[in-house]
């Protein structure tokens, strides 16, 4: 972990939807090579935070800095060029396009040589995608689509990768594969900000984590410490007696084997 300015710094970020503060003055940081998790219940503001960083929803107040430079006024389509890419919730692959077209679009901001190198890297990481390169992305299984969504983001060779609920809607065995992949990317030194409702899995792979509740950060620290804390265990990991679980505890993970 470097002692200099963090790679990604979020300061007093506020996101509003028609006057409602979905994200309320939150601050956190991601250092080079780190995997940081944002956990919290449904509606806590995790997705809004990622979408604001990626420029898809406007930043109402506060700032986001990537390697010291503000992203606040940078349009969404310029942000991948700066080195930050979001893997959106629900995978959002271009279903009617081929796997290869999807990957080429992921490298849209890169030169043809960089795209060729990126393609080699992604195919080495996901041999399955190479086998299915000419197939329409919509015909892939849910797990394969998630791999494609991550591979597509890696095509931009990002300095920071944002992942929004990568395990959502996947069968448990596929969820394991996704988290194995995150471990592997982490070992390769990819800096990642991970949003997950599956707090147990997220805390198992992350270095540090922040806990969001109704748009605010209520806890933060090393992932292992958070995973051991009684409050996190009770609220987000489903441990402890049922009576101590508050009403806004997360709903059970949806499991849809596709």
């Amino acid at each position: 972990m470097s002692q200099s300015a963090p790679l990604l710094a979020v300061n007093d970020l506020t996101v509003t939807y028609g006057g409602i503060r979905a994200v309320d003055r939150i601050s956190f940081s991601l250092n080079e090579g780190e995997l940081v998790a944002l956990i919290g219940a449904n509606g806590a503001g995790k997705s809004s935070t990622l979408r604001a960083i990626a420029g898809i929803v406007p930043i109402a107040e506060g700032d986001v800095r990537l390697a010291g430079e503000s992203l606040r006024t940078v349009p969404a389509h310029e942000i991948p060029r700066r080195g930050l890419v979001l893997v959106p919730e629900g995978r959002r692959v271009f279903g009617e396009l081929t796997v290869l077209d999807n990957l080429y679009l992921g490298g849209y901001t890169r030169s043809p040589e960089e795209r060729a190198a990126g393609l080699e890297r992604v195919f080495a990481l996901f041999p399955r995608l190479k086998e299915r390169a000419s197939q329409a992305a919509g015909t892939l299984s849910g797990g394969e689509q998630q791999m494609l969504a991550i591979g597509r983001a890696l095509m931009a060779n990002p300095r920071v990768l944002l992942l929004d609920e990568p395990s959502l809607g996947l069968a448990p065995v596929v969820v394991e594969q996704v988290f194995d992949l995150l471990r592997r990317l982490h070992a390769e030194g990819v800096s990642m900000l991970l949003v997950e409702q599956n707090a147990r899995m997220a805390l198992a792979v992350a270095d540090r984590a922040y806990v969001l509740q109704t748009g605010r950060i209520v806890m933060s620290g090393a992932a292992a410490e958070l995973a051991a804390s009684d409050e996190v265990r009770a609220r987000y990991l489903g441990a402890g007696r049922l009576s101590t679980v508050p009403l806004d505890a997360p709903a059970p993970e949806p499991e849809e084997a596709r």
Partner: protein
Amino acid sequence: MTLPVLIDQLVSGLAIGGVYALVALGFALIFGVLRAAQFAHGEVYMVVAFLVLAVLPWFPALGPLQFLLVIVTAAIFGAIAGMLIERGVFRPLADAPHIAPIISTIGLMILLQNLVAYLKGSELHRFALAWPQGNVSVGPASVPVLKLVIFGTALVIPALLQVALTRTQLGRAIRATAIDAETARLMGVNTARTSLVAFAIGSALAGIAGVLVGALYGVVYSTMGVTALVKGYAATIIGGVGNLVGAVAGGLLLGLFEVFVASYVSPRWTDAIVYTLLIVLLALRPQGLVGRAIPEKL
């Protein structure tokens, strides 16, 4: 029915069908990316035909080369008209309810028709290329070269477009914008620009169709866009909305069908029969003849 007559009708049907195909392709491309019907699409076709007619006297009489020059000029005029309409009419209404651009383009349609009628008169204007095309033998028949050239143009241009859309990064970006604009932005695609480019290409196709039909019938007039829009729209529906290959196939089918109905039933009944069948087709196969079921995003 003799073979020469049949061949002649086939060629005529493919020529006018090719024009419908280009109009339909442009309409479908714009609809796919902007998710809005461009009701003034036929007026782009009409205005470009008039503009080309206005500059035609300055074109050198180079025979076939003049024809090529006319096509390129029409494409450029069409692209410019399309970009003006995208910027002036569609962009300001991007966040407005879906009905807004429909009303606006219907207004634009009426405005352009009346403007041209006011400036140039509402009569037929002769549109003649300085290119004595003559006839050519196709089997036992002798058919006008022009019809074959029009059909050829209407095949080559969609083929080029297909290659551009599938083999280039800009083409992939246009298709990605049509499928999911937000995710395209996350990939670094400037979707405002891809929309503009798609609009320019679609309108260039309308412009080309306008001069082709002018050359085919030898006349242009201020309300010619109405028929073009209706036929192009019908071709789009036959092919399946949002399906570019289907739009071309739909246009050719419609052209052939019209010519055969006109010869074997009656020219007076052509439109009535065509549209009746269209209504039946829509009821039985809402996804079009060629298309698969339309995804919910349409």
